[in-house]
């Protein structure tokens, strides 16, 4: 390939060394003569700066994928993490030399000798990776295009929107598989006939109410819901996937098979049947949502009464169940409560704080935490977020947080 490059003679090399006032004894005997390759090509490849996780993934032979739309920035995904890809340009010149020996690889003894090393490319840019969270809001929007209202409604006018399978979602939302799966779980999405759907609230209410009614009729609230029997009974009204999904969202699997409280020293029962116990918190939350969703500002006292009456017998309501779901204003007369779910708030941290401060000027730590907890990362916790985006002050003896800048 580069056969016409002149081999530099040791004489030439040593003359230069002499002029440079370097002694042969100062340097190792191998001299690497660097040439540009005849096929010098600065476009032939790209340099990608690797994060530890990505390097490990590549070394383990696992898949690393880049996804992008023309309008969006490209992202790089391993199974579990998502990174934004940004191009960095530098003023330095990076000479890419595949066969260069470095430092310890160069023998420090032996006769003087030369080695040719070729620069195959000169680069002034590379791509860097910044970890980022996948765009859950985008996923939510996609799934809300065609919410599931029951088999009978699938062909009607309101249900002509697009429906997506997992592959589709991976490509459009641009996140890692694990993160997309977690987001789907957070959105309480359900896989129906291979497509991921979100249940519309009225339909969800129907299903849940049927399950609760069945529980009350059969005393399953104390013994646990036998999954198979429940699916069998309600399977005539609703797709089984939906029933199982709703049970999964609002109940917890019982480990020892339907005996209520169990002694952890007992051997687990060797039965395949699954039993679930309804989660008091999640069911109460659901009924709060049911009452508040279309109600605007509700008189707090009245709400609490209605709420308690609506939940299944034996379940206890508590204000702590409303964190991240509703806001209470104790400063007005009478005290009011209204529906304010964290899922409907902006994903972008700056915009989230702006919306929160627009809604209420000052927040206590207990009030604001449920509304920013989902924005925390490994590096930044609730306190960190507040330090960065809010201003602390004292009001009536308690610490409150308000906006750092004018609210838009």
């Amino acid at each position, binding site marked *: 390939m580069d056969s016409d490059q002149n081999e530099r003679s040791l004489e030439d090399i040593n003359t230069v060394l002499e002029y440079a006032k370097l002694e042969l004894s100062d340097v*190792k005997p191998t001299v690497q*003569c660097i040439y540009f390759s005849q096929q010098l090509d600065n476009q032939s490849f790209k*340099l990608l700066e690797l994060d530890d996780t990505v390097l490990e993934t590549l070394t383990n032979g696992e898949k690393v*994928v880049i996804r992008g739309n023309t309008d969006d920035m490209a992202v790089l995904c391993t199974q579990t993490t998502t990174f934004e890809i940004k191009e960095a340009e530098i003023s330095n010149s990076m000479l890419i030399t595949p066969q260069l020996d470095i430092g310890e690889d160069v023998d420090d003894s032996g006769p003087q000798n030369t080695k040719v090393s070729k620069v195959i490319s000169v680069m002034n840019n590379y791509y860097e990776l910044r970890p980022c969270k996948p765009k859950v809001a985008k996923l939510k929007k996609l799934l809300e295009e065609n919410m599931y209202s029951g088999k009978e409604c699938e062909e009607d006018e309101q249900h002509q929107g697009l429906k997506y399978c997992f592959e589709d979602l991976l490509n459009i939302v641009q996140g890692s598989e694990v993160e997309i799966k977690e987001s789907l779980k957070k959105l309480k999405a359900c896989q129906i006939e291979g497509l991921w759907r979100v249940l519309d609230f009225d339909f969800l209410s129907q299903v849940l109410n049927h399950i609760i009614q069945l529980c009350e009729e059969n005393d399953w609230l104390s013994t646990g819901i036998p999954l198979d029997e429940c699916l069998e009974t309600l399977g005539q009204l609703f797709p089984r996937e939906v029933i199982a999904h709703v049970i999964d969202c609002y109940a917890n699997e019982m480990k020892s098979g339907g005996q209520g409280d169990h002694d952890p020293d007992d051997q687990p029962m060797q039965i395949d049947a699954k039993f679930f116990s309804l989660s008091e918190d999640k069911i109460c939350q659901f009924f709060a949502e049911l009452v508040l969703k279309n109600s605007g500002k509700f008189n707090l006292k009245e709400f609490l009464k209605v709420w308690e009456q609506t939940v299944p017998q034996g379940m206890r309501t508590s204000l702590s169940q409303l964190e991240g779901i509703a806001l209470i204003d104790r400063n007005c007369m009478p005290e009011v409560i209204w529906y304010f779910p964290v899922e409907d708030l902006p994903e972008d941290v700056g915009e989230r704080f702006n919306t929160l401060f627009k809604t209420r000027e000052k927040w206590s730590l207990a009030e604001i935490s449920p509304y920013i907890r989902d924005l925390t990362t490994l590096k930044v916790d609730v306190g960190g977020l507040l330090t960065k985006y809010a201003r602390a002050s004292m009001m009536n003896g308690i610490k409150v947080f308000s906006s750092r800048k004018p609210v838009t």
Partner: protein
Amino acid sequence: MYFEINFFPRPDSPNQCPEWAIVDLQGSLETRQPVPLGGKFVGDLHFTKQNVPILIIGHHILYGKIVDMEKPFAVIVKDESSETATDRDTDKNTSVNYVVKALIKKKLLFKQRPKPIIANIPKKL
């Protein structure tokens, strides 16, 4: 339009990915006349017994250091044989594979000002 680029591990062994090096120079290299650089001599690279890299380019001597890169580079190349397109008209779901050709974990960084070499020293008698 969506596109997907997949990295595939080296077919032989992911643990035997070649390691290349970078010579990192501040500024850019120029020739006196505007000629293509291909094939041209750049300079001599020496290492002192303490592994300090010394690069002599033209009439300049540059002292540098070996840097272990905090974040190594992957050299990625398009795998031409893998290019497929589901729909040539709309370019939807074009899938191209890239391959990691090498990793770069170390570089020789020359950021000190080059020192000029005076070429005409009278030879010792």
